[in-house]
Structures are given as structure tokens and as C-alpha cells.
């Protein structure tokens, strides 16, 4: 259906041949796209579809919610706050002095009971509250190039103020994130038998293999006047310093947990666990809180009822909406497309008022 060059059919006097060859029709080139003739489906939200959709959503969501909630309820979790209890009573008025001093004894022993059987591996986490690892300047204060390989050792521009020592030699690893490394330790025993906490494979594989080099060793770390956290063993390469790797993955929210280790054995119900905590980390100067968490996992993860409850709520709400629409349809039936029900047409005399 070519239209270019065709003479217009709507009349007009015939012109001379010299003009007709120049006359170009303005009729647009035909295509299915420009004439809106593309094959299409035109779904309409009829009441049947609406009710069916809500029922389908409800039928899908409620079982998922039940399964998630069930999995989450099966997880056994022990949470124990220890930052207040692990300060000796003499120092309860001046916790900051206690934690910053290098001569005070930071060892603290706590006992708790296992409420239900915990099948291994039992994951040990430390939870920090009111600690803003998501602060913009904090998140930027690291050098990925330096962490990756020895060749990037001098790439420290983003790490200020923790970039160089007093005599301008670079700190490895530099930056505030590494400087504030968490350094509390936990030792577990049950019935006087020491529980082995495995510290292997607690970090993401991609981090260990590709982001933290095996030829990078800590240098000049925590050597300044202000100590922000733990020290690092200078003879172990960064790719094996799993605590550092876990810590360097900054958390999104001010309350977060990080994996400390795994206990591979099972813990039986009513076991008395004794944990020896080295309370080294300073959260007292900014009102932070520290907690020790032991938790099993299920296919959905840790103990988080949110997903299960949310699915159940939305599923139930959709069923409720479906019933509501169904009742509306039954009680107030309305022939589709009947304009008689439109509000301005209720008046029988129409527009001639």
C-alpha cells in the first residue's frame, strides 16, 4: 500500500505534467504500528477476573506464609546481652575508663541454658546496636585496591584519617572500617568440655578469593595513638583473616549481627553452657549495645517471623477482598457496560433539564 508519489484522489484540477511529477502526497506511509492495527490482546478487569485474582493470591500466599512461619518457629535462638553485665561493679559509674584501660581484666564468665535441642551447626553471632556502619564517610573509608593485592598498597587516598602512620608509611589495611574491627572473643564449654568454635568459612567465598589478596599482610595496623578495635596478626595474609573480612562487609542498618563462628556439634536441651567473654570492644562511648547470639538455621534462614506473618496477613486480606467483591457482585449486580447506572444518567429526563 505505497502512497508516496500517488496523486491525491480528492479532486482538484489536473495540473501540467511538469508539476504532477513533483506533487508528493502527504498521506503518511502506512504501517501497522502507525495505524494502531497491531495484533493485541485487550484484557478487561471484569468482576470475574478480579475475584479470581484475589482468590488465587490468597490461595498461594497462605500456604507459603504457614510454611515460612513454621520454619522460623522451629529455629532455636539464644540472645544474651552482656555489655552491661560484663563491666565489674567498681567501674559501673565509669565504663569508658574500664574499657579503655589496658590493665583492667576484661574476662567475663556467663552461664545460660539451652531451651530446646539445637542441631548443629549452631551459628555464633555478635550483635551490635546503635552502631552506624552505614554512615557515608565510614562506608567510603576503605581501599579495595589495597586489600586486593600488594601492588595497591599505596592507594590510600580514600582512607583518611586512618591512611598513614606518623612517619607517612601506609597502614595496611587502611581506613576506618578496618580500624574499628570488633575484637571481643567468646569461648564456650558445656559440662566442662570445651566446645570447638570453627572460624573457617564464615566469610563469603567471593570475598576470600577475589577481594582480599593472599599476598597482602597487615602493616602498621593499630599503631597510632587512638586504638579503634582489634589488632591483626601480621604474619597471616588478609585472605585468611576471616574476622576482618566479615567485619569489612558493612551492615545496612544500625542494628546488625555478624557471624563469629560455628559450633559443629549438637546442643541438647537443658544443657548449661558456660561462655568466657573477653569484653574488649568499646561500645560505651556512643551508647552502643553488645549481644551474643547462638542460633540454628532453617531453609529460610534465622528466626525471623516477619515473612511468614506478612504472607499470612496479605493472603488473608486478599481472601477478604475477594469475598467483599463477590458479595458486591451478588447484591448489586450491574450489567457490564450498562450506562444506565452512571451517576449522571440516573435522572430519567437526561440532559434536557
Amino acid at each position, binding site marked *: 500500500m505505497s502512497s508516496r508519489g500517488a496523486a491525491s484522489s480528492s479532486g482538484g484540477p489536473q495540473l501540467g505534467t511538469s508539476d504532477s511529477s513533483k506533487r508528493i502526497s502527504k498521506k503518511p506511509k502506512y504501517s501497522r504500528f502507525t495505524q494502531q492495527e497491531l495484533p493485541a490482546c485487550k484484557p478487561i478487569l471484569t468482576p470475574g477476573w478480579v475475584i479470581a485474582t484475589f482468590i488465587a493470591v490468597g490461595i498461594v500466599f497462605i500456604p507459603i506464609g504457614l510454611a515460612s512461619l513454621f520454619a522460623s518457629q522451629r529455629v532455636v535462638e539464644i540472645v544474651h546481652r552482656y555489655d552491661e553485665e560484663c563491666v565489674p561493679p567498681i567501674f559501673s559509674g565509669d565504663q569508658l575508663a574500664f574499657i579503655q584501660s589496658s590493665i583492667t581484666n576484661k574476662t567475663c564468665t556467663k552461664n545460660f541454658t539451652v531451651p530446646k535441642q539445637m542441631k548443629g551447626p549452631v551459628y555464633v553471632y555478635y550483635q551490635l546496636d546503635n552502631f552506624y556502619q552505614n554512615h557515608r564517610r565510614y562506608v567510603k573509608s576503605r581501599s579495595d585496591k589495597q586489600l586486593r593485592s600488594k601492588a595497591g598498597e599505596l592507594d590510600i587516598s580514600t582512607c583518611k584519617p586512618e591512611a598513614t602512620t606518623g612517619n607517612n608509611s601506609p597502614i595496611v589495611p587502611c581506613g576506618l572500617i578496618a580500624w574499628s574491627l570488633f575484637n571481643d572473643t567468646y569461648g564456650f564449654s558445656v559440662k566442662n568440655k570445651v566446645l570447638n568454635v570453627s572460624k573457617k568459612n564464615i566469610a563469603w567465598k567471593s570475598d576470600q578469593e577475589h577481594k582480599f589478596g593472599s599476598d597482602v599482610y597487615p602493616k602498621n595496623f593499630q599503631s597510632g595513638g587512638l586504638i579503634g578495635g582489634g589488632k591483626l596478626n601480621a604474619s597471616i595474609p588478609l585472605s585468611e583473616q576471616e574476622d576482618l573480612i566479615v567485619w569489612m562487609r*558493612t551492615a545496612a542498618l544500625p542494628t546488625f549481627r555478624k557471624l563469629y563462628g560455628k559450633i559443629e556439634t549438637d546442643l541438647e536441651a537443658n544443657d548449661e553452657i558456660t561462655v568466657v567473654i573477653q569484653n574488649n570492644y568499646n561500645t560505651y562511648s556512643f551508647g552502643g549495645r553488645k549481644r551474643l547470639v547462638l542460633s540454628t538455621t532453617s531453609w529460610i534462614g*534465622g528466626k525471623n517471623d516477619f515473612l511468614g506473618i506478612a504472607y499470612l496477613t496479605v493472603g488473608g486480606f486478599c481472601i477478604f477482598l475477594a469475598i467483599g*467483591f463477590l458479595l458486591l457482585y451478588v447484591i448489586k449486580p450491574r450489567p457490564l457496560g450498562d450506562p444506565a447506572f452512571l451517576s449522571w444518567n440516573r435522572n430519567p429526563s437526561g440532559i434536557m433539564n
Partner: protein
Amino acid sequence: MSIVKQDWLVRNELDPNRLACPNPKADVNQDNIQNLGVFPLLYQEGVQNVLLSWFQFLGWAFNGVLNAILIFFFCSRAMEHPAFRKGGEVAEFEILGTVMYTCIVWVVNCQIALSTNYFTLKNHCYIWGSIISWYIFLLAYGAMNPIISTTAYKVFIEACAPAPSYWLLTLFVVITSLIPYFTYRSIQLWFFPMYHQMVQWISKDGQSDDPQYCQMVRQRLLRPTTVGYTAIWRQHPNAF
């Protein structure tokens, strides 16, 4: 609209020789053209600016804000402290960011799908293609050298994809974000349909073959205006 154009409309409307209905042999894909021939008042929807009113605009803005709030808080709350996977791993900011952005991509595309009346093949390609290309992007960008991809390195393939809670959370947030708009649209279509929606409904039901029904719909939908040919008609009912 000028008088000349109105004249054409009036002639199409009321000329008994042209009062009819579409050629039953015509291709069903010509719906729009047919409908315009039968219901030329469809043009008035554009003239009277019923499709882009302030109410519509504020409604969409409100819907956007509501979606943003739902996505942010549901994702944060669901991936809060405990592990999100069987291996005991906790969600850091990279993972939370990936989950949220996945939800955004899904919600936006599904909103477009919900508000589309006329699904051509291109619509399908672009809507579902957008979603698929987001996952392809995650895979491709995540596979690049960590110097380039920094925090996104392998975030999808290693952390998110094997986690059932990631997929369940995406499904939940998408459906929940769409429910308000879906409900609004159902109610609007059912009880307060706009003219073009009614016409679409009628032609779907096959009633557009009924000339009397078409005439009834057209007559009843004439609204009194101060400009346009209904005003002229009221002034001079005998002029036509």
C-alpha cells in the same frame, strides 16, 4: 474544536445513512478505528482533558510514594538481623540494596502491565524484557572484575539467588505493592468507568453489533457543556 470539525461529528452521529455499525467482516484488530467510527465522542475525552487531570496525577504520585514505603520497609524488616540463608549468612548493605532494587524493577514493570489496556507484542517484549534484563545485568555486572563492580561483585549469583527468602520476599513485595492500584482500578472500572473503558467493554461483549444499543450509549453519554456541539444542539435543537 472548530465548527467545521463539529459538523463532521454531527453528521456522523445523526446522519441516518451512516448510523451504523461496523462491517462484521472487518478484522477484529481494527477495533479502535471501528469504535471511533461508531462512537466519535471518544475524541472528546482528549479535548476535555479527562485523562490527565490533577486528580490522576496526584493519584499516581501517591501510588509511587506508597510503593516506595512498602518496598523499603518490608525489605529492611525481612532482612533485618537474623540470617537470611541456611548457611547462616547475614544480609549486608549490598544484599539489601540488590533485593530492594529487584523489587523496584518488578513493581514498576508490573504497574505498567496493569495499567496497559492494549497489549501488543512490543508491550510484552519491553515489559517482561526489562525484568529479564535486570537479572542479566546483575549476572553480567557481578561477573566483572571487583575493581569495576566493587560491591556488586557476585552479589546475585552467590548471595541472593540460592536464598529462598530472596525470591519469596520479591514475590511478596511485588504483589503487596500492586494490590492498592489493582483494587482501585477494579472499583473504578466496575462502578465509575470512563467512556473509553465502557466502549471497550461493550465491543468485547459483542454489543457493538447492536445499532440500537450503540445509539443508546451515545445518547446517554452526552454531557452538557458550554462549548462544543452539545451546546449548539441545545440552543438550536432544530438546526440538525
